[in-house]
């Protein structure tokens, strides 16, 4: 039975003089390596140049605000329950009078912490969230920790900045694929990202 068409018949024939002389073979090899010497390098110089990882990459978390700049999270705790690594913890609080422009619902998360050492970036929190408040950004990593204090991210790092809102180009793998194909064909050069709902 033949599984692939790449199999090669093993041959045990005597080598010709040219093959035994070894030097022509070396010359061929040197030709191949010198071609690679002048070839374009595939290296991406990481900290300076970052590769685009696709529109559905799961990077660092973000706590979204709505169009008016109110926080969406109601501290229901479903993300913490869904989290397989138990990385999320929160403290709920009741919204006071005069804070209506800060929080969308009557209950909000006074403290919302993600332990970035525990997080496995599976995206289950994103799927569990009924208020579409927590997302994993497709465009930013969690940077390297140099201190223990940097490991647990609080609301100061997680809540969205209204001057620099987060949007996505695609939402499913199918959408991402279609986008990639369009890019490859040169049909789209610059896509306006779809806002996170």
């Amino acid at each position, binding site marked *: 039975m033949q599984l692939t068409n790449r199999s090669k018949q093993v041959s045990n024939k005597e080598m010709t003089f040219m093959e035994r002389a070894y030097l022509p073979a070396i010359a061929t*090899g*040197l030709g191949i*390596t*010198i071609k*690679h010497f002048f*070839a374009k*390098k*595939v*290296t991406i*110089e990481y900290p300076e140049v970052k590769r685009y990882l696709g529109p559905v990459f799961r990077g660092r978390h973000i706590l979204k605000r709505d169009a008016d700049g109110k926080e969406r999270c109601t501290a229901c705790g479903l993300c913490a329950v869904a989290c397989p690594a138990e990385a999320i913890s929160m403290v709920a609080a009741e919204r006071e009078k005069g804070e209506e422009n800060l929080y969308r619902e009557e209950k909000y998360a006074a403290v919302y912490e993600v332990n970035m050492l525990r997080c496995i970036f599976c995206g289950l929190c994103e799927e569990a969230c009924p208020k579409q408040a927590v997302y994993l950004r497709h465009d930013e990593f969690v940077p390297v920790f140099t201190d223990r204090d940097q490991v647990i991210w609080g609301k100061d790092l997680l809540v969205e900045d209204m001057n620099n809102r987060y949007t996505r180009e695609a939402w499913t793998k199918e959408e991402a694929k279609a986008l990639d194909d369009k890019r490859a064909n040169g049909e789209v050069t610059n896509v306006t990202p779809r806002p996170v709902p």
Partner: protein
Amino acid sequence: MELTEFTIKSITIVAVFALTLVIAMYSTWAERKVAGFIQDRRGPNRAGWGGLLQPMADAGKMFFKEDFIPALANKWLFIAGPSLAMLTALLASAVIPFGSTFRFNGVEVPLQGVESNIGILYVFGVVALGVYGIMIGGWASNNKFSLLGAIRAASQNISYEIAMGLSLIAVLMMSSSLSLGEIVSQQHGGNWNIFYQPLGFIIFLTCSFAECNRVPFDLPECETELVGGYHTEYGSMKLGFYLFAEYINMFISSAIISTLYFGGYNYPGMDWVYNQLTSAMGTATGHNIATLIGTAVFFGKALFFVFFYMWVRWTIPRFRYDQLMNLGWKKLIPLAIINIILTAAGILFLKPIITQILN
């Protein structure tokens, strides 16, 4: 007068010494860069522009590591090993003619450490001593893998030295001089030995790969079989010296190859350039600039061979030990002897006919 000559000689020797060290230092950088480029990578590019400060960083690392001597090693020989390797590697650079002469106030200064009438013999003597550094180091380590590596290095060097010497004899038969300066000046005017000795050149090149313990003959440090080879027990700057000695040897042998076979500092159209320069800028300045151009050409040739060493290293796999010995004893030595006979026949019968036709 006596003193000035001494000063001039000292300055040349120190310059040659420093130059060899700098070139060996940047060979380590070039090696990593060439390896990277051949493997479609970029090589070191963080320390300084294009990674040019990488050798300094490496040397700094080597110096600051713990200088460790194993408890059961022979302390004195353990230190003598790398020292000897370094010493013999550096000694050979003294007789290489890097260029013609400089003229200062009527004093001719040759660009050569020592003009010796047995230059090439001296080089061979010193290179043959190089195996002691490896052998002593490997033996003093009191480690079986080191010893095996050292034995391999010794037997390999001895085997290939024979073929190397024999291939050289053909060159010497043509030049009828052992002086490197004389051999170079005989190759003046595109009369390079490579055109007369192609077979000898290939043998010599192969043997110098083996002498420098470079791929495909780097069996003394074959990691898969011998851990690290003769320098398994070495660390810190002592390991650095061993690695450095290898790069110095590489440069020296490249320089020797370009001296013996590629005309040293000679290049096509040399006389025309010399005449142009001397008529344009006066005898002394023109002469000095012509010498500088020749030296640059010489370094170009030598560095090309250093590059060639690296190019080969990242192209072909190493030999098996029996293949190495077969190649050395059964192929290269007979070939070298045939080459001698052919050269002798050529000098005896062909040369008179050709000179007759030309005249």
